[in-house]
């Protein structure tokens, strides 16, 4: 019987390995291991009729035969099973997903960088008074610089309320309530009395930074701006450039340009050391110094993400939203 077993093993091996289709393999399984007439099953059935000695002899090799054939069959079956797997190649289905507006993404990037630098995010109102938006920022009523900001006023004009033209107003609000040293960042909506076109909107966002302490210098300001832009445009070989400029609430005043490969120099915002008159307006003692800067959020987003028209941010076209946000299913 031993010989019979060995011959059967050899034959089974050959037959199983030679099988070309899942069908042939399944026939082989029935032929050897079939519950009724399987060759191995039959041999196993003969076991009880054998003597104790024969059982001891043949039992293990018969068991071994069954295990070997079984494992050989299942290995081969797995190989053939591939043919019968689900077709996974069809297009994935859109699962409705929420998403952030690109401006929020940009604002959060700006905040994340400055929060990493140790700046605290604060907010201020969008409807401001002339005092916070102009007077306390060293822009008195007859100052020609008021013309630099085309202002939307709240009616009636005599009440002195306006849609804030810049986030610098937040500086005054924060300084009135807090003592230096500190560093804050305030990102928010600002408004201009301007006709809209590809680069102008009636409302847009600014990121305002303010650091106040002792012996704060222009070199500190330039470092901070340079560090910010390197992180904001990380991965691109950028350069920063600082030009003289004029804003009544800073002295010296500068503008910052960023050089982006393939795009050239692009204006990104204004900055400077806080004007002593601004510190006077919030009754800070002498010897306090600080820097402030204001960056255009839409501008940064347009440059970073290649958006050609500022109006896209407020048109809420689904295709635009989905490019940077979540996904919705078409009807």
């Amino acid at each position, binding site marked *: 019987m031993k010989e019979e077993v060995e011959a059967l093993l050899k034959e089974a091996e050959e037959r199983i390995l030679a099988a070309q289709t899942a069908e042939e393999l399944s026939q082989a399984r029935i032929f050897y291991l079939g519950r009724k007439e399987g060759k191995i099953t039959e041999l196993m059935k003969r076991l009880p009729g054998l003597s104790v000695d024969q059982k001891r002899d043949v039992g293990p090799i018969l068991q071994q035969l069954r295990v070997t054939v079984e494992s050989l069959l299942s290995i081969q079956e797995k190989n053939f099973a591939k043919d019968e797997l689900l077709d996974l190649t069809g297009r994935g289905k859109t699962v409705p997903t929420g998403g952030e507006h690109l401006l929020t993404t940009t604002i959060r990037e700006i905040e994340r960088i400055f929060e990493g630098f140790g700046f605290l995010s604060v907010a201020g109102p969008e409807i401001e008074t002339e005092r916070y938006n102009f007077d306390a920022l060293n822009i008195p009523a007859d100052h020609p610089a008021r013309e630099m900001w085309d202002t939307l006023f709240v009616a009636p004009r005599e009440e002195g309320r306006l849609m804030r033209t810049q986030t610098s107003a937040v500086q005054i609000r924060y300084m009135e309530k807090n003592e230096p040293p500190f560093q804050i960042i305030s990102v928010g909506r600002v408004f201009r009395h301007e006709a809209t076109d590809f680069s102008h909107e009636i409302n847009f966002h600014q990121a305002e930074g303010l650091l106040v302490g002792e*012996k704060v210098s222009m070199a500190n300001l330039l470092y901070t701006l340079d560090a910010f832009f390197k992180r904001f445009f990380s991965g691109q070989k950028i350069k920063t450039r600082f030009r*003289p400029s004029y804003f009544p609430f800073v002295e010296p005043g500068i503008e910052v340009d960023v050089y982006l490969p393939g795009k050239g120099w692009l204006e990104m915002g204004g900055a400077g050391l806080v004007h002593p008159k601004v510190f006077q307006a919030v009754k800070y003692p002498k010897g306090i*110094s600080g820097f402030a800067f204001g960056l255009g959020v839409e501008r940064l987003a347009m440059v970073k993400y290649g958006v050609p028209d500022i109006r896209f941010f407020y048109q809420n076209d689904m295709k635009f939203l989905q490019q940077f946000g*979540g996904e919705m299913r078409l009807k």
Partner: protein
Amino acid sequence: MKFSIQKIREMAPFVKSAEDVRERLTTHLFEVEDIVGDTIDIKILPNRYDAASYLGLTRELYAAAGKRWKEKKLTKVRVVKKGSVKAVIQTKKCARCMTVYMEGVRISPSPKWLQDVLLHSGMRPINNVVDVTNYVTLMTGQPLHAFDFQKMEGKQIVVREAKQGEEVKLLTGEQIFFQKGELMLADTRGALDLAGIKGGERAEINAETEDIVLTAANFDGTTVRETARRVGVITDASSRFAHGLSAELVGAGMEMAINLLIKITGAKLGKTFDAYPKKALAKKIVFDPDRILEILGVEITPKEMKKILQDAGFGFSGKQIIVPSVRTDIETIEDVAEEVGRIYGYNNFSLISPQVYLFSNEEEGLHMLERVVRERLIATSYQEIKTHSFVSEREAEETGNWGVIGDEGEAVKIENPTAALYARGRKTLITLGKEVVKRAAKDFSQVRMFEIGNVYVKNIGKVKEETVATFFSSSREREGIREVKGVLQAIIKNISPSSLIEEQKDDKLFLSLQGKVVGVVGHAEGVAYGEISLTRLLSFISFEKKYEAESVYPVTFRDISFSLSREVSFGELESEMIKAGRELLSDFYQRDEYKKEGKSIFTYRMYFQSKEKTLTNEEVDGRMSDIIQSLSKNGVEIF
């Protein structure tokens, strides 16, 4: 403002090309807007009109190159005629006025070199007298004007404030009526010009002109700016005056103009009058190199600073810096530091990290709340949008009251809107948001969107501003409402331990915390909306969370279908279910809604769970029949 590159290079020969001019000006002084041919368009900073001239630019270019510029002395001229026209100032709004009488001009076109400079500086040549005055303005920054002496009355020019209703016909032919207090140069007959803005037609220089009166003056910037804006005539001269010029420029401009008029028009010089009641004193600032160093943060030696300042025209007297008379913008040591910094070049600065203060206070509550709510909405598959802060009158009227601050006052009115679409501040984000959703719902199924932003309301002279989060769903009416309501409840449950109280008024549901309305839910035009005031929520938030033991025993459920046979609200029915289900009813929701024999049938799924044991079928069925009994009492037909 436009300048000729050729002329700039003639005056500052070390400048190599147009690009070189751009580079030097950009780095040290002004932004360059454009270069076309020989013309460079420079954006003059509002406080630096002293440099809005060839002489000013040249001085700056020299200083930026580390060189010192010496202005050429003009040739001496002699007074050869007795004629005179006196200058008289009768207002505080004029700091200085000079007049010169000149005889026997020969009017003709200007020489080509002069015409070229004018043309390349964006000006049109007219005749030699007018061209010289324009050229001198470009050279020195001082506006000048020449009048035809024969056409004037009397022998003096008075600078005075107009009486209401006086008039002048401008060179353009436009008739202007003065308002009281506006400035004019006048003879005995009346106004000769709109001072500092435009000359008058009456004493215009033309081909027949023989004798002229040349004038140069210094006018109050605010007055000129306001008049120019009122009459809508903004000129090169008016913008120069509007930005504040030094009275010292009057003399420089006059000297150059006299010199050129003699050379070019053959005029004979008469008498000069200089009305200058209060000569401007040279400003002095203590030279404090340590302070400059502190401001700039860059190692520049006092010697280097001194050289930079001297190159820029500053003088030194002992420990004092003497500010050049033309520099009306320099008042403090900070201004001086800026001069040193920009001429040294900000791009040559070493960058030094500031010292940063470590905050112990928390992030602002509202800011954090915004982030939390935004993240929650996005996770609930809502897409963020951004709409304008303004709405039209009609929109404000029709939908202004839909939001959470709806009935607290009127929408803020904008005094000077740029378009009718932007007439009012938004009182709710629903107005514009629902339009976005309606548009998107044409192409997309189940549109869900949200916006977080500020809304404004005005009540008895007070303006209130709140930050709200507003979300929309295009799902079917009842489903949509349940959805946005669920979202609103989930948001509040997540951040506030207080329980929400609902109240339906008309077609809107108001939700409040401790008696204060914090949210609203509604449905209109196929869009379900919810709005929460984050500003109000702020006083109820708590991010503290504690673990609570959950039941470990299995949950079982039963479905129940019913129709309503009389008016009863879902809210009432659901509270009946809760009452009847008692401690074993752990949750329920409306699973389905369908029509059968003309009746609306609603299916609810009720979940049962005990904290103490596994419930038997009998226990669950018992509680179910309590619920059915209680519902039946409320006019419900069970199926």
